[in-house]
């Protein structure tokens, strides 16, 4: 996989200590944000949730300022005031209004920029409902189960392994013969939601001692197709960088 444009060493640190306050995320700004206002993404290089947003912005050819939050060092004032409830990235600032939660950001981009290619199928409510269901499935299942794979040992790890295999098989069944989860719509909402985890799968394979190509070959094939897509290639990091990052996390949490 080609290295994306932003590598951790070339990104400038996002630590901001300015006193500029961003508005409370729940306050309703009377001026509607126009498509001309600036987009800023507060993110963390390896975050699959942040990468969803990077992929979406690239799919829509929307220019934006990328701001790396050095989460291991601490959270910037801008991040804390933009997402006071969860204090998490990604945060999309449009003008100065924050949008939080990756899948919510993706839907916001679809709706605020209606002239750009959409991730959700724009005019089929049933297909939209299916896409939302499966993106929710990815959200509920993949990261948590994967985390248990690298955090736990023994019986609980075996259980996590079994669950991960089941998740991959379920996703494979949903994908079926389609090129992308978006089906007729093409690369879509579920593809963008799942694509960043393709860089985590090799780590899950190592920890869980299984091969995606064996347990869910359809997903392995999808991973390859999706990896060739420009928006994805530009946004993801090589799997061994992810593996190294997991090692850093384990040290940080004192996990053997």
């Amino acid at each position, binding site marked *: 996989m080609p290295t994306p444009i932003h590598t951790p060493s070339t990104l400038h640190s996002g630590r901001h200590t300015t006193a500029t306050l961003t508005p409370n995320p729940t306050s309703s700004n009377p001026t509607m944000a126009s498509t001309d206002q600036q987009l800023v993404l507060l993110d963390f290089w390896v975050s699959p949730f942040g990468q969803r947003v990077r992929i979406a912005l690239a799919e829509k050819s929307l220019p934006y300022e990328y701001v790396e939050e050095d989460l291991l060092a601490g959270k910037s004032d801008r991040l804390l005031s933009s997402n006071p409830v969860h204090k998490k990235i990604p945060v999309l600032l449009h003008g100065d*209004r924050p*949008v939080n939660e990756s899948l*919510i*950001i993706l*839907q916001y981009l679809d*709706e*605020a920029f209606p002239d750009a290619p959409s991730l959700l199928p724009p005019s089929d409510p*049933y297909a939209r*409902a299916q896409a*939302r269901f499966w993106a929710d499935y990815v959200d509920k299942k993949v990261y948590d189960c994967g985390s248990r794979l690298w955090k736990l040992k023994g019986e609980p790890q075996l259980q996590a392994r079994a669950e991960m295999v089941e998740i991959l098989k379920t996703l494979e069944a949903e994908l079926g013969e389609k090129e992308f989860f978006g089906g007729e719509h093409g690369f879509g909402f579920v593809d963008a939601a799942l694509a960043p985890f393709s860089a985590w799968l090799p780590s899950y394979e190592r920890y869980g001692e299984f091969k995606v190509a064996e347990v869910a070959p359809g997903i392995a094939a999808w991973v390859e197709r999706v990896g060739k897509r420009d928006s994805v290639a530009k946004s993801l990091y090589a799997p061994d960088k992810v593996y190294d990052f997991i090692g850093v996390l384990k040290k940080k949490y004192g996990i053997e």
Partner: protein
Amino acid sequence: MAGSGELKLLGVWTSPYVIRVRVVLNLKSLPYEYVEENLGSKSALLLGSNPVHKSVPVLLHGGRPVNESQVIVQYIDEVWAGTGPSVLPADPYERAVARFWAAYVDDKVGSAWQVMLFTCKTEEERAEAVSRAVAALETLEGALADCSGGKAFFGGESIGFVDVVLGGYLGWFGAVDKMIGRRLIDPARMPLLAKWEERFRAAEAAKGVVPDDADKMLEFLRTLLAWSASKSK
């Protein structure tokens, strides 16, 4: 004419997730067939319609299933966009804010609710879950102040997305209040939410679907827990 095909909702009368869908169907005056599921013995239709989660609610529209309550609510809002009030606002930013708080409700209130009623093994665990729920509700008190702009609901003048999502839990809050001897939504600490609850319960769309009999809820809980315990033996 929006959406051809009949509506059928598979549900359980106590489920916050089912209740919110019923409120929305009522808001839009949509006729539907309601099927009460027995969680101890799920119907073939339920299992076939929602094989992934095997849970309620399931909305069948012309026989096609839509699953996950927040997905269902948005589906109804989109298919019947011209019928009755809109559940989500029109402005993209306001929609993002509504989705944010709806996700927050299910994440923070919902997870605590699960523990305090269904999965806690000790009274300490229950008390801890209650504290978490109260903390989340206090945050929502602030959100209500911001979102409503002084109007009746999170959605403004009429019931919206966050209202139906949170409103689905009110029946259980009444049961928990009885269980712990005090109110989760304490009017002294959450005056706006307390008034909001009254208005939501009184709304036409909530009639008959938001439970108000705490004893009946507690009896349902006892039956469910007993069945669950017998299953795991």
